[in-house]
C-alpha cells in the first residue's frame, strides 16, 4: 500500500469509528437531554406563574409566550423569556405576568455568570440569612404600568415600580431592570394586539 493511500485509509477508519460511537451514544442520550431541558423550562414556568397546572405555547412574531392555566382551565398569566447583557455575562430571565401585562407575578433568573459573590446575588445572596432570593422576590406582584426603576440607599416603593439595587452590583441590578423593562414594552404590544 502506498504511503498516501495508507494515510487516507487510517484517517477514514478513525473518523468512521468516531462517527459510529457518537451516533450510538446520541440515540441513548438525546431524548434524555431534551427531557431535562423541557423539565427545567416547565419547572421555571410553574414557579413564575404560581398556581399553574397546564401551559399553552403561543409564538407571536418569533416571540414565544407561555400561557399558564389553573385547574379550572382559566388563564392565570403569561410567561416569556427576557434576554440581554449583564455586567459580564448574558442574562436569561423568565418573567411571569398577569394576562394584561400590567403586573409582574414572579421572575426567575435562568442563566447568569456575573461576578461571584457580587453580581450573582441577583440569583442567590448567601449573605442574606433570611431570604437568599431577596433580589428577585422584590419583583413579586410588582405593578409595571410604568417602567421599573431601581433605588440605592433608600427604601423602594413597590407601588411606584421601584426595587432596591444590590450594593456592589449596581450594573447587574440595573441590567436586570432594563432587560425586563425592554421585554415588557416589546411584548405587551405584541401580546395584547394578537390575543383578543
Amino acid at each position: 500500500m502506498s504511503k498516501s493511500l495508507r494515510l487516507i485509509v487510517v484517517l477514514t477508519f478513525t473518523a468512521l469509528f468516531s462517527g459510529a460511537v457518537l451516533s450510538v451514544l446520541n440515540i441513548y442520550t438525546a431524548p434524555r437531554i431534551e427531557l431535562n431541558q423541557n423539565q427545567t423550562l416547565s419547572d421555571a414556568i410553574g414557579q413564575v406563574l404560581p398556581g399553574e397546572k397546564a401551559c399553552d405555547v403561543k409564538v407571536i412574531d418569533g416571540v414565544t409566550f407561555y400561557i399558564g392555566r389553573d385547574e379550572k382551565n382559566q388563564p392565570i398569566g403569561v410567561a416569556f423569556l427576557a434576554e440581554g447583557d449583564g455586567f459580564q455575562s448574558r442574562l436569561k430571565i423568565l418573567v411571569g405576568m398577569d394576562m394584561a401585562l400590567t403586573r409582574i407575578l414572579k421572575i426567575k433568573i435562568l442563566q447568569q455568570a456575573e461576578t461571584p459573590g457580587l453580581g450573582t446575588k441577583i440569583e442567590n445572596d448567601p449573605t442574606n440569612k433570611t431570604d437568599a432570593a431577596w433580589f428577585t422576590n422584590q419583583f413579586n406582584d410588582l405593578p409595571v404600568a410604568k417602567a421599573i426603576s431601581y433605588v440605592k440607599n433608600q427604601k423602594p416603593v413597590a407601588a411606584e415600580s421601584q426595587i432596591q439595587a444590590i450594593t456592589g452590583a449596581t450594573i447587574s441590578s440595573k441590567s436586570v431592570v432594563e432587560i425586563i423593562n425592554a421585554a415588557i414594552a416589546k411584548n405587551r404590544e405584541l401580546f395584547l394586539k394578537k390575543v383578543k
Partner: protein
Amino acid sequence: MVKAKTPLYREFTKGLWRENPILRMVLGTCPTLAVTTTAINGISMGLAVLFTLVMSSLIISLVRKQIPNEVRIATFIVIIATFVTVADRTIAAFWPAVSKSLGPFVPLIVVNCIVLARQEAFASKNPVGRSVLDALGMSVGFTLVLLILASIREIIGSGTWFGMQIMPPTYTSWMVMVLPPGAFLMLGMLIAFSNWLNAKLEK
C-alpha cells in the same frame, strides 16, 4: 525497550507524585484554575478527564502500530474528541446540574494537554496494559490535585465543602478565593508546598 523494565505498579504511581501532571509537569492548568471553585466541580472534572484519558490511551495503544507517523496527531485528536463528546453528553443527560456548572470546560478537555501528552509520550509507544495503568495514574493524580485545590477554595471562599456548611455561621467568606486570583494564589502555594516536600523527601 528500556521502559519495559520498570515494574508495572510504577506506571500507575508515577502520576500520583513523581510525574504528577499539575504539580510537577504543570499541564492542564486552564481547567485546573477555572473549575476548582467547588469540590463537586473539581471531582466531576477529574472524573471526566479520567474517563477520556483511559479510553483514549486504551484505543490508541491498541492501534499504535497502524497509525502512520504523519497523521498521528490528527488521529489522536479525533479519538480524544470522540470520548470527550461521550463524557459531555453523558453528563448532560444524567447530571444536568453538574453539566451546567462545568459549562464549556468539559468539551475543552479535547485540547487538554495532559490527554494529548500521554498519547504522544506514552500510549503510542507502549503496550495496552502499561498505557492504561499510565492513564489511570495520571488522571487519578490530576483528580486528587483538583479535589485538594477545590476543597481549599470552597472551604475558605464559601465556608462549605461539597455544599455542606462547615465553617461557623459567623465566618466571613474570603470572596477572593472563589474568584480567579484565588485560583492562582492557591495553585502557586500548592506547587511551592509540593516542591518543598519533594526537596525534603529527596534529602
